[in-house]
Structure formats: structure tokens, C-alpha cells
């Protein structure tokens, strides 16, 4: 399953990067690569069934526990 995922990500990334390199859009390439690598890393970790922290927990912690700015 992970191999299929990596293959799909690799193909998608290859075509995306190829287009940007051919057009010499370096700024786009940097942003694309950064976001794509973040997304790919999360995807592979999810496929490996590693429990990832819920990003909303940070939001709840800030507003509930620190600022106490929430509806009780």
C-alpha cells in the first residue's frame, strides 16, 4: 500500500517539478516542493498508521486553557 502511495506521489511530483523546471519558474518550484514534501510526508506517515497529532488540539489548548476564551 505504501509502495503504491509512494509511486503515485513520485509520479505526481515528477510531472509537477518537470513543468516548473522547464518553464524556469524557480519561486513556484520552491513553494511547490515545500508544500508537496509536507503533504507527502504526512501521507506516508498516515499510510504507515502512525498516529499524528490533531492540529486542532493546539487551537483548543490556546483558546481553552491559556486564554480561557471559549463558550463553556
Amino acid at each position, binding site marked *: 500500500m505504501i509502495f503504491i502511495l509512494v509511486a503515485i506521489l513520485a509520479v505526481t511530483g515528477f510531472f509537477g517539478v518537470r513543468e516548473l523546471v522547464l518553464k524556469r519558474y524557480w519561486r513556484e518550484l520552491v513553494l511547490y516542493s515545500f508544500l508537496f514534501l509536507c503533504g507527502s510526508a504526512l501521507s506516508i506517515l498516515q499510510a504507515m498508521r502512525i498516529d499524528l497529532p490533531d492540529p*486542532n488540539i493546539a487551537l483548543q489548548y490556546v483558546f481553552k486553557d491559556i486564554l480561557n476564551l471559549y463558550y463553556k
Partner: protein
Amino acid sequence: MKTEKYKISNSQMMFMSISFIQGAHLTIGFMSDITGRDIWAAVIAAFLVSLIFISIYIKLAQKFSGKSLIQINDILYPGVIAKFISLVYILFFFMIGVENLVFTGRFILSYVLPETPLWVVVTMVNFVCGWAVLRGIEVIARCCFLFSLISASAVLVVTLLVAKDMDFSNLQPFFETSLKRFIQGAHVIATIPFCEILVFLMLAPNIGDIKGMKKSILLGVSLSFIQLLVIAIRDVAVLGPLISIIVSPSFETTRVINIYQIITRLDILIAIVLIISMFVKISIFYYAVTKGLAELFKLNSYTYVIVPVGIVMINLSIMTFGSSAQSDYAAAHIWPSFALLFEFIIPPVSLIIAQIKGMNKKREEVG
């Protein structure tokens, strides 16, 4: 960044506003737990408050004719502060997009495809939304006419079919909810369906007639408000005190329909309405995020970041909230406080700064 050539007409803007807010008609279902049978009054209060802030958003768009929220921030705020505010807004829109994607995915999982893994459903939904974003705002704007009509028709059909089961005495006693709960309900409804119209500031460069924008958006919001109000009153009239404990009141109301044992189980209508309405909402936020990133980082086109943003959205939607109960709690108790800054504080401050800068410029010209 190259500006798209397509301009959204006033009528398309109106239908986009209607479709956008229609996407929230089931999300207000979780508010019935807090406001109980006074949900209809909370909808009215939320609408009246939202009108003020929506007018502020429109005034900002008209003052900076043809400029998106990112460009407006660049004009109003100095250097790094402008970039920071813009980035934070992009993250805000991204979070709303993810939350809506999660909601849609969990809804489809609960009511339509219970055996399917969440990631499959979310990937399919996001793929369609990403495709619409890739084709441009033109596609989304044109679809909204048909989608808003389908949604409104479905709501009308369901309302007419349950008319015999409605008992308006269920609306009584009026205002039995405490003031605190009522304010919370109105605040959430103002935050989630209505004031999220703020995202339309990202579409400002694509609007053909900026002056006509006020009328079209306000008309669209008003028509959606009427639909939301009808749904709220209908659900209370049919379900009565049960509305406080049912997870999805609109769904349950539709299940009551039973015409000679032949026309039953019309809840699929609500499922269709929700899915197409959420498609519009997710697409608009997806578009706003990619467009915002393109403008912030001065890219040639927003299309290059559609795929990676989509992958991150899918992953975050799977990671977010372990259950519907957690997401409903966060939406009703935490999210209004978080969104307060973005929807109710920064836009009026931006407008005040714009007015002051405008006045100072006039004084300099006269002096």
C-alpha cells in the same frame, strides 16, 4: 501574477453567495443542541449582526476596487505586518476548507458510504474541488446558479411534504434558552455561515461590476437567510423538543416524510443538497488559499500550488478530529472565539485605517 480574464457578473455573484451559505444549513444542526427550540431566533439575530460586517467587507472591496484581500493588506499595513496578516488569513481560509472537507467526508461516511475509509471519500471530494479550482472561478460561478436552484428546490419540496407533520406549537415556549446560550448560538451562526463571506474578498479581482457587488451579495445572503430560517422553523415544528438531542435535525425531519408508504426515505435529497453545497464552499476556500499563496509569494499562476495544497488538505482532514462530536464541540465552543479576530476585528480596523489614509491623502492634496 496574471489576472484571470473571466469576470463574475452580478447575478453569478448573487448565486455564489446563495450557494455558499446553503453549504451551512446542515452545520447549524449542531447549534440546536445549544439553542434548542430558539434556533430560529438565533438565525435572525445572527443575520442582523452579520449584515453589518458583510457591509464592511463589501465597503473594503469597493474602496480598493479590483484588489484582493492580500493586495488590500499590502496597501494598508506596513511591510512585514501586511505579509504576516495575509499569511494568517490564508491559514484561516485553509483551516475552514479543511474543516468543511472533514464535515463532508464524515457526513458521507455516516449516511451514505459507511464501509468506505475516510481517506477515500475525502480524496474524491477534494479531487473534484481541485479540478474545479484548476478550471477557474468561472466554472464554480457558473455551477452556482444550478446548485443554488437544486438546493432551494429540495428544501422547498421537503418543507411542503412535511407540512402536515408540522406543529407550530412546538416553537413555544419562546426564548426559554438562557441569554448566554442564545448569544453563543447567534455568534456561531454569524461566524460560520454568514461572515465566512469574507472569503469573497479574495474573488474581488474577478468581479466585473464592483459597484453592483453590494446589491448582489446582500440579496444572495438575504435569500439564503430566508432558506435557513425556513429550515430552522420547519425542523423545530416537526421535531419539537427532540431537536436538542438529534445530531442532524434536517435529516430526521426528512425521514418523517411518508406519503402512502410510497414516497419515503427522502433523506437522500438532503444528502445531495449537502454534498453539492459543500462542494461550492470547499472549492471557494480552496481557490482562496491557492490564489492567496500565489499573490503572497508573487507566483505566475495559482494553478501550480493546487496539487500540493490539495494533498496537505486531504491529510489534515484525516488527522483532524477523531469524531463528529469533537468537531461539533470545537465548532460551537472554540471556533467563534478564534474567528472573532479574522471576521469581526481585522476587517473593521482595516476599513478605519483605509478611511484615515484616504482622508490624509485628501488633506495633502488640498494643502
